[in-house]
């Protein structure tokens, strides 16, 4: 039952093999009803989870994962109560508050463009052929904060292989659901809706790139992009588009939402790069969110930002010969 692991990724860079979960998420969720335990209520110091979720799946020894990775996992509360998901509001806690009622079923995903097998699939059918894995990744937001998150998902490459892109396919474009009735943030034109993101085909096929359906061994909470989101760990967080309804293979580079909104601040590639500052702040360091504090007073946990978010050994070759100052 051990999960298949891409051979070219040192396990130290993702999840230690010994702590891979070997369960399909629906099996894990069906076997036992668990209650929020240790990590529940970290922010309040009470046994209750403000994010409106059940908390980490207690069948997994998350503390063991923490020690073997060498970097502490962020508690469930951080991951589910500190979100940039403008479809549900622009405040960090707006998505947690506004996405609770969001219905993620039924959900279908259409695959379009330059490929042999286009079509629209129900989410369950879209996911079913792939094997779920738990992977611990660093998440570096372009706003200079970061977390370490145990995602549950599967390689994007799986679905790309099934779609069989043709010779014209150079990029993959992703689109979020557009439904202002269900996504109140879309009633104001903060960004051009629907949210669009894109990857070069080789970036999309890279084994580190995953489609995510869960976190901490549980179904993905709505505020984190349920039912399906993208995670590309060496890129800034905004590349990880949430609530995906469409995938399209294109010949031309897609125009992603943030690059449309502020082209001098956000580019298409958005690789984590400590040497290229955002025009309004430094990218040389990041605040690894933690519960460290001076007594009750919160405190920053500045650490140096690493090139490609520390995944350079696996991905740097994708950008050989490219000027990353121009292609930021």
């Amino acid at each position: 039952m051990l999960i298949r692991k891409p051979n070219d990724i040192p396990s130290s860079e993702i999840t230690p093999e010994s702590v891979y979960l070997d369960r399909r998420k629906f099996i894990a969720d069906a076997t036992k009803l668990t209650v929020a335990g240790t990590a529940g209520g970290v922010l309040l110091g009470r046994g209750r989870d403000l994010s409106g979720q059940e908390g980490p799946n207690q069948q997994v020894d998350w503390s063991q994962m923490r020690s073997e990775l060498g970097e502490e996992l962020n508690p469930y509360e951080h991951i589910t109560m500190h979100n940039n998901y403008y479809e549900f509001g622009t405040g960090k806690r707006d998505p947690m508050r506004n996405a609770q009622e969001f219905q993620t079923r039924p959900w279908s995903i259409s695959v379009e463009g330059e490929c042999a097998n286009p079509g629209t699939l129900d989410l369950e059918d879209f996911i079913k052929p792939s094997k779920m894995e738990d992977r611990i990744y660093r998440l570096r937001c372009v706003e200079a904060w970061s977390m370490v998150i145990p995602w549950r998902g599967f390689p994007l490459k799986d679905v790309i292989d099934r779609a069989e892109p043709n010779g014209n396919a150079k990029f993959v474009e992703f689109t979020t659901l557009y439904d202002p009735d269900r996504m109140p943030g879309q009633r104001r034109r903060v960004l051009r809706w629907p949210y669009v993101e894109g990857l070069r085909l080789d970036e999309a096929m890279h084994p580190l790139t995953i489609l995510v359906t869960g976190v901490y061994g549980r179904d993905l909470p709505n505020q984190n992009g349920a039912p399906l989101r993208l995670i590309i760990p060496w890129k800034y967080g905004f590349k990880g588009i949430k609530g995906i309804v469409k995938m399209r293979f294109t010949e031309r580079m897609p125009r992603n939402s943030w690059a449309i909104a502020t082209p001098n601040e956000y580019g298409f590639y958005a690789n984590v790069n400590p040497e290229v500052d955002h025009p309004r702040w430094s990218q040389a360091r990041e605040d690894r969110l933690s519960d460290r504090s001076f007594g009750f007073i919160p405190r920053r946990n500045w650490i140096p930002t690493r090139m490609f978010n520390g995944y350079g050994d696996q991905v740097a070759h994708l950008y050989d010969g490219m000027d990353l100052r121009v292609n930021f």
Partner: protein
Amino acid sequence: MVTVARKRRVLLLKLATWILALSPLGWLVWLTFTRQLGADGVDTLLHRMGDFTLIILLATLAITPLRRLTGWNILIRIRRILGLFGFFYLSLHFFIYVVLDQTLDWEFILEDLTKRPYAVVGFAAWLLLIPLAVTSTRGWVRRLGKRWQKLHKLVYVAVALGLLHFYWQVKADTLWPLVAATVYVVLLTLRLRQRTNSN
């Protein structure tokens, strides 16, 4: 009898102003001690202090137009308190930025205050308000005479810089910076119009 009643009214008004102006701080202290600041507590403190600074400074600018519109001359008695509270919140905002946000890392602070326009204008607003806070006492009002009025017009420049700072630091959602700027423009217009009328 009349003066006693008036004195009591002024006292009550001042008391209410103090309570109202300190309540945002009380709220933040409560959130801090109950650990409800969220995953990025420093950001919450920093941004809320900035919000309260602008709200209180705009309220300060509203006093004179409001007094002229309503004829409630008593309002002038709380203008200085409000202005000083605005400066107080701005100083807390700057203090949180230096100590909690930047963790006294002077290299990064210097880079911000010289290279990043939103930080530069915010810092300039704080610098500009220092002489105003210092000369807010009765003694300085007397000493400076007519020049005091001129000097304290600088508050309009400081608030404009503060609004620019607010506008430049948001990522995409410019709603609140624009709301605040609209209030500012209305207040400034009222003030200019009232001055021409009285001339």
